[in-house]
């Protein structure tokens, strides 16, 4: 694994390994001194062409916990708006000897361009590109789902996949990089994925995706679900005829108090996930967001662990990995 561009590039073994390492990294976050020396003297650049406080803070925390030197490069206004080109930005970072580049970009494929163009030699980590992929988000979701199941059945998370879990992704799949990355990763890990969306917000051409597709949230929720992941509805979608009104969307595809009550009345163990930031009252009600089923804050915590794991795997060799006792594999 040279770069992390898309969960689709991961093998099952790699995905489980990243999650296992993330579990170990999570332990670091509970210490009084939350730091490992793994990336001491290495420079990581957070290259953000798009605003994202949450993802940037998560990556920055992960980098600092691994003792890396962190440079935040907010390059808002890329070549899209006739600023400096991606190529020049990349070559600048190469010239200052960045050891890894974490990139967030509004254009789908920008991290792939960076990784394959020959402009730079360091590892590229995709922190979200356009409507294409958000692999660390999917990894943190998988980590959260793995913990959820472990809490229910008492089995350890280490080494396990998501086989047998049933997860529904609800909302704007068409514009969601989170949904795409989760489709590939969760199905790779053996979960059964159901996409629930108005037909206007499903991409054309997903017949080959390893998912079940439903238009009705109520039908999807009539089945046993281990988790429901609500996708964010962007404000600008509301005026582009994807659905008649936000009220109708919330009624048909929102996780309303009524649907939450339905889960409670069934005694279901269904967890609620949301990649954030949430539109309370639209795709998710406050009752659902604040309920004990909500794992939203676990997701945030796991985000740091997963990003530490990814940085660690991409930036250190096997010999260095053996020197960190906390990360030696039990096998």
């Amino acid at each position, binding site marked *: 694994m040279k770069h992390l561009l898309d969960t689709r590039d991961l093998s099952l073994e790699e995905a489980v390994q990243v999650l296992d390492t993330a579990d170990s990294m999570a332990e670091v976050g509970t210490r009084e001194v939350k730091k490992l020396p793994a990336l001491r003297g290495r420079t990581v650049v957070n290259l953000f062409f798009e605003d994202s406080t949450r993802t940037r803070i998560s990556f920055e925390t992960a980098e600092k916990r691994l003792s890396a030197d962190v440079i935040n490069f907010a390059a808002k206004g890329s070549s899209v708006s006739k600023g400096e*080109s991606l190529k020049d930005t990349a070559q600048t970072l190469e010239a200052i000897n960045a050891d890894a580049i974490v990139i967030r970009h509004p*254009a*789908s494929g920008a991290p792939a361009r960076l990784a394959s163009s020959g402009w730079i030699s360091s590892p590229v980590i995709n922190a979200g590109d356009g*409507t294409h992929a958000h692999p660390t988000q999917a990894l943190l979701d998988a980590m959260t789902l793995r913990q959820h199941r472990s809490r229910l059945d008492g089995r350890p998370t280490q080494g396990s996949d998501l086989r047998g879990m049933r997860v529904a992704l609800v909302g704007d799949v068409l514009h969601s990089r989170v949904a795409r990355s989760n489709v590939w990763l969760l199905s790779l890990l053996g979960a059964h994925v159901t996409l629930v969306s108005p037909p206007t917000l499903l991409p054309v*051409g997903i017949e080959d995706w390893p998912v079940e597709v439903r238009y009705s949230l109520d039908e999807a929720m009539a089945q046993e679900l281990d988790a429901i992941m609500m996708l964010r509805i962007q404000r600008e979608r509301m005026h582009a005829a994807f659905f008649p009104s936000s009220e109708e969307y919330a009624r048909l595809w929102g996780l309303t108090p009524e649907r939450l009550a339905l889960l409670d009345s069934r005694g279901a163990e269904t967890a609620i996930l949301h990649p954030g930031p949430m539109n309370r009252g639209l795709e998710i009600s406050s009752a659902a967001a604040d309920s004990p089923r909500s794992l939203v804050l676990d997701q945030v915590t796991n985000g740091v662990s997963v990003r530490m794991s990814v940085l660690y795997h991409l930036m250190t060799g096997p010999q260095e990995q053996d020197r960190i006792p906390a990360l030696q594999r039990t096998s």
Partner: protein
Amino acid sequence: MSNQKYLIRGANLLGEETADILVADGTIARIGQGIEADGADVVEAQGLVALPGLVDVHTHLREPGREDAETVETGTRAAAAGGYTAVCAMANSNPVADTAGLVEQVWELGRQAGWADVHPIGAVTVGLEGERLSEIGAMADSRAAVRMFSDDGKCVHNAVLMRRALEYVKTFDGVVAQHAQEPLLTDGAQMNEGSVSADLGLAGWPAVAEEAIIARDVLLAQHVGSRVHICHVSTQGSVEIIRWAKQRGVDVTAEVTPHHLLLTDESVRSYDPVYKVNPPLRTREDVEALRDAVADGTIDVVGTDHAPHPVEAKECEWACAAMGMTGLETALSIVQQTLVETGRIGWGDVARIMSTEPARIARIDDQGRPLAEGEPANIVLVDPAAHRVVEPEKHQSKGRNSPYRSLEIPGAVQATFFKGHPTVLDGHINTPRALVAQAD
């Protein structure tokens, strides 16, 4: 008049019979066996196929306005290198070719350059804005004698304006060449809408946005009894609509690009913007349907849609990259690979779809002529047995945005005769035809 004579020896005319061709005074003086001609330069053509000089109905020469991307000089040199003796220059220059003055300027630049005839295409609407008709009559009556009109790059999407344009050009036996793209269905579109766009998260350009406009326009053409030409047909559905229209007797002609005959949207998975083009690369099924449509005559011509861009316009993220590919210097090879070598057509058909029919559609009387005594000596000699690896840096075009970089493609243009003058000789670019020698 140049006194230079050329004796082309042993060429394979349209891939059928072998003969010598004597070129003198800009015309084909003799065709026959064992011609002897004192003082003629001999061009050995054993194993080479002789075709009438190619005619491109769809070229972007970029001048005036984007001389950093291409000029009439470099674009027509590229045309000559690709075997072309005439190109139709699209109107989306800056300023737009929507006046007699501008089309005469482009035409004159072509005459001065001397690599190939340049026939400007006039804009249908002022500034390609789709709001009011440009001075179509003035362009038709100008020295450029424009017969083909197009807002290519943009669709004439207003149905009333399209109807009026179709009617109006009948005055001059003109034709409207439609870039079929429903604008609202393709707002922000980045690639073909289908399974690949779903995976890549790139906004989709649905086939229906092309097909809906073609369906409308063939019906309009039938209603008003006009000629309509469909640029760069890219989908199976479009082929079926055009086939249906031709069966009903609609006077419609259709064009396909070489890249739509070879490449599919699978190439976009690299996110390399060299594959970004409008209309977008489609699916394997579309490619097969387009090849079949050329073979059965539903599609009349191959047009290159040669669209050179400076390097920086492609060396960026997909979404902000320019659309378009170069094509003049590879078109004949791609046609050979996709149509001749797949057994769908012969070299006589290549002459038809790349020379005769393009000239007829654009009403260029002295191009696309048969290889016969007394005809203008516009001839291309191609070596069908050659193989070459595409190196865009060696192209005559300023554009380096060839989607065939590093691909091995069959066929090589060995010579191009433009009105009796070899613009390409021995497989290399030669010299332009001198303006002083022109009688026209």
